[in-house]
């Protein structure tokens, strides 16, 4: 049955991990995500799982790497400074094609920054962070239910493509409470992992590595990775398209700003302005084609983010060449009010 329970975002995420069959958590404390490790420290041992309070985020991600190489599901969670420390490990995991799940409950930066909600890590998560030509799957929940569901999805996608999945959420989604169904909406499965390192018994020795030094080997390896990424782009895009059929203006927003945008859209429609929303749920793969198709008809676009314009670049390269793109962003912990977004809607409509 679909019984719902009032749940905090971070807890829904942690419970989602357990339901996804994740039995290994490694992490180092940092606000605003501490309720994730605290929940798992208590609940993983109850299902035979392992929780290690790691000495650093560098250690955490490499422990995830070790479990992933063993063919089991593992995760870590952190925020800004800790995610920065993990970038080397993420690059190695991409290079060696070792799956795992990393949660970033974003806090504002740069530097020690602050602990209030932000989306300042979009570029780091979606366009790089670590060295080399690689991608992570990036999922952006906007509700407590999605914190639960997308965590499960994240593990499944990571295993399917032998990639790292990143849950990129702002502190608001992590901290607020909503009714949530705490059971998976489909049977969770784990694929066979013949590539995992389990000892050579009964087969030839196996190897997981990212070092390719022979002439042309690294280039060929990169081309293979890119082929895989194209497949992810073909198959795994998720986005919410709301009130776009009659819209004259399309807001593009993810996470908390998409929720605020929905309120502003209601206010705008009450005033007779036809506004809709495109909400990317997967930030990588980005819903470029969906956005492009809508922009062929809806030429006015307003991008709203809690940063100074990071997803904006993906919108710009995806939208129709004649699209008229406006941006409203608040960095450093600023959360836009619906009436601020409404003002931007009015400005964009009058342009």
């Amino acid at each position, binding site marked *: 049955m679909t019984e719902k329970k009032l749940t905090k975002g971070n807890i829904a995420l942690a419970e989602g991990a357990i339901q996804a069959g994740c039995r*290994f958590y*490694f992490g180092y404390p940092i606000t605003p995500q501490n309720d994730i490790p605290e929940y798992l420290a208590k609940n993983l041992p109850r299902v035979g799982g*392992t929780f*290690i309070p*790691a*000495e*650093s985020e*560098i*250690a*955490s991600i*490499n*422990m*995830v*790497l*070790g*479990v*992933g*190489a*063993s*063919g*089991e599901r*593992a995760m870590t969670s952190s925020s800004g400074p800790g995610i920065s420390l993990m970038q*080397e*490990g993420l690059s*190695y995991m991409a290079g*060696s094609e070792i799956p795992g799940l990393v949660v970033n409950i974003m806090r504002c930066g740069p530097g020690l920054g602050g602990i209030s909600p932000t989306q300042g890590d979009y570029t780091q998560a979606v366009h790089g962070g670590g060295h080399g030509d690689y991608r992570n799957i990036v999922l952006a929940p906007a509700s407590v239910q999605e914190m639960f569901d997308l965590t499960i999805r994240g593990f499944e996608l990571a295993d399917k493509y032998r990639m790292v999945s990143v849950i990129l959420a702002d502190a608001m989604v992590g901290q607020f409470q909503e009714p949530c169904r705490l059971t998976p909406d489909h049977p969770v499965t784990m694929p066979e992992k013949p590539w995992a*390192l*389990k*000892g*050579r*018994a*009964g087969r030839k*020795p*196996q*190897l*997981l*590595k*990212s*070092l390719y030094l022979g002439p042309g080997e690294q280039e060929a390896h990169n081309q293979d990775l890119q082929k895989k990424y194209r497949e992810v782009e073909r198959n795994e895009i998720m986005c919410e398209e709301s009130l776009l059929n009659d819209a004259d203006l399309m807001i593009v927003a993810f996470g908390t700003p998409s929720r605020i945008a929905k309120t502003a859209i209601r206010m705008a429609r009450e005033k007779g302005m036809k506004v809709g929303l495109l909400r990317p749920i997967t930030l990588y793969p980005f819903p470029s084609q969906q956005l492009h198709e809508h922009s062929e008809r809806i030429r006015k676009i307003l991008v709203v983010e809690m940063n100074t314009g990071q997803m904006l670049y993906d919108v710009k390269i995806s939208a129709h060449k004649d699209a008229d793109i406006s941006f409203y962003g608040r960095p450093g912990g600023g959360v836009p009010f619906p009436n601020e977004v409404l003002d931007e809607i009015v400005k964009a409509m009058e342009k």
Partner: protein
Amino acid sequence: MEKIFTRTPTLTSSETHFCPGCTHGIAHRILAEAIDELGIADRTIGIPGVGCCVFLYYYIAIDTLEAPHGRAPACATGMKRAQPDKIIFNYQGDGDMAAIGTSEIIHAANRGENITVIFINNSVYGMTGGQMAPTTLLGQQTTTSPYGRNFQTEGYPIKMAEMLATLEGVAYSARVSLHKPKNVMQAKKAIIKAFEMQINQMGFSMVEILSTCNTNWRVSPIEALDVIENEMIPYFPLGVFKERTGKDFL
């Protein structure tokens, strides 16, 4: 004619990339022999660090994971927790373990992770061209200590085997050397002992091996063996610094 010596089966017949005279090759051989003598090759997974040992998988025919520079103890932690029935070892250089990876090694040891670490101390960063490492001897000239290591500016060589022996989680910590046949045999015994600690679930075990880097020391292979005897051992004494006898967890 009777054959009295043959390559142990888990050591591959690949030609190694090591410089002629380098004792990394001897360390690989005794490691493979230890694995075969214990009969654990089918369930052993090796995790080399980044350094001249990175191609371990070409020479020892077991499952292998490549770890980021210095992070092998964290990777091994994850792997051992996921597969407690497997034998997991790290093979790390002194740059890898005693410089960039000190945090990971100390905490893996302190948690008493039931893993084995083979630590190759050759007093330099071999792979990158012989730069100064935390293990570089006082007065030793390297490409980044061209006037010789000076304790006033670069501090003293770090003694990993002694340092790790102070941690409760450590079951076994020893320092051995590869400069003479007798020492090679003792080194192999120490490696077997370290693996036995893991097999018996005693906790973290580490064997520090004094090894040559004749290329970067700019001496002949034979002179390099003398360097170990006359310069390294006086500062890095051989011996067992910790050996747990029962499951005496505190």
